[in-house]
């Protein structure tokens, strides 16, 4: 099977998420991405990064279990949001390995939203801003700061 079905880790605080998530959050991604098609790529290699409005895209080559390689596009935030978070055009380089956890688009194309993007050393990409590279961000203890 090309797409491994995964069960997302259920963190405490789902109720808090539901009560505090922005009003629009309940519609947007569910309209574009398919909750029945989670993707979890353990071995993805960055081939291209597009910092563009309205959303940035990270292209990755993914080794499939049958040995073939597929190129997938992973959606992320707008460039100035990523810049504000300390992510610049130099943050992700071609050839960089990534673990992608997300959901495939409903039209069945090789696109997914980046629910969690993780570097091989376990660092969550984007989800923690990079310390003093994001001076205007609210820093979260244990995530953005040690």
């Amino acid at each position: 099977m090309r797409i491994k079905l995964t069960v997302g880790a259920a963190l405490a605080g789902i109720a808090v998420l539901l009560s505090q998530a922005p009003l629009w959050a309940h519609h947007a991604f569910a309209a574009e991405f398919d909750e029945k098609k989670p993707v979890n790529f353990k071995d993805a290699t960055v081939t291209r990064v597009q910092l563009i409005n309205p959303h940035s895209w990270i292209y990755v080559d993914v080794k499939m279990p049958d040995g073939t390689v597929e190129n997938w596009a992973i959606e992320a935030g707008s460039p100035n949001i990523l810049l504000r978070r300390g992510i610049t055009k130099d943050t992700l380089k071609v050839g960089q390995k990534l673990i992608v956890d997300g959901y495939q688009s409903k039209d069945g194309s090789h696109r997914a939203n980046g629910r969690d993007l993780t570097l091989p050393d376990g660092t969550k990409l984007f989800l923690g801003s990079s310390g003093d590279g994001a001076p205007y961000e609210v820093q979260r203890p244990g995530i953005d700061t040690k």
Partner: protein
Amino acid sequence: MRHRYIAPLGALALMLALISLAAVSMTGQAQAPKPAPATTPKAAPAATAKPGLPKPGPAPKTAWGDPDLQGTWFIMENVPLERSAANANKQFLTEDEVAALDKQKAADPGRNARSGNTEQDVSGAYNAVFNSVLKTSKRTSMIIDPPDGKIPPLTAEAQARLGRGGRGGGIPGGGGRGNAATINDNPETVAQSPRCLGVQMPFLATNPLFAQGTVMQIVQGPKSMSIYMEDDHAGGGNRVIFMDNRPHMPSTVKSVLGDSRGKWEGNTLVVETTNFAQGFRGANPDTYRMIEKFTRVDSNDLRREITFIDEKTWTRPWTIMIEMGKTDDKRHMIFDSACHEGNYGLTGILVGARREEQAQKK
């Protein structure tokens, strides 16, 4: 994809409705309009040093001797448009209060909580991959006049025009407003953003979780100045402000960004914008105008004040102040505001609305 726009606009509509209702419920609206106040904006006390930047130097001048407003300017702190009830009578928070609020924001698990329920998990993806939480400003409202930090009450005429919960006042649906129940009836009533009609004036950071209203670039000449306003979804906007004493366009010529004329008063560029095709916060576009003051405070900081004047809508003019700054070079960048994904938004919204109608009939 289409719902990505419907829902935020719904939220915006709801917010506008609440504001309108609050304004309508206030009394004492029928005062004579007062002239635009001569504001002396107060900078937030003890502005914190901006990390990664050299100490601010004096405001630079252009080669031809005018104050130099040029550069990419960035909203660096979160300031609400109106002051909350919790901060009534308080123009500035203390450092301790700011720290406490930021601590609260930092602890919000909603910033990347995952869910075992995949439907919730997909919907909750507006996490830190997609948004950014700016630090809290000491300033408790963008509004500096009236002193209570609130939009003034509506005139009796505006209440009658806008009706209970009414809003808009411009071309139908033009400002992303209109009646929420019928907004997706046809292409003309769909809000502005999904029609890729560019940013809306006055370009404010009212939802700084996202980039809208937070980044702009000024390019200046002796006789005109342009402001590129980046907006991730709606398509950007490029304002031109003429500074060569030419008169405003005839009142019959209207545009979304309005018609701007500027002149220097000391180190401040004072810009009057008229001829709007749509009002702001219920303003009547025929009588609504903006007086804007741009001041380069120092090498790192730009102050933008806007006085909103419409005697047909508000019982008095009101003024906001926006402080923008420069960031380090890697964060200076301005990006083309391509319209939304694939430019299929409008078709998708209309098709979706028709399908929902059919489903309701069944």
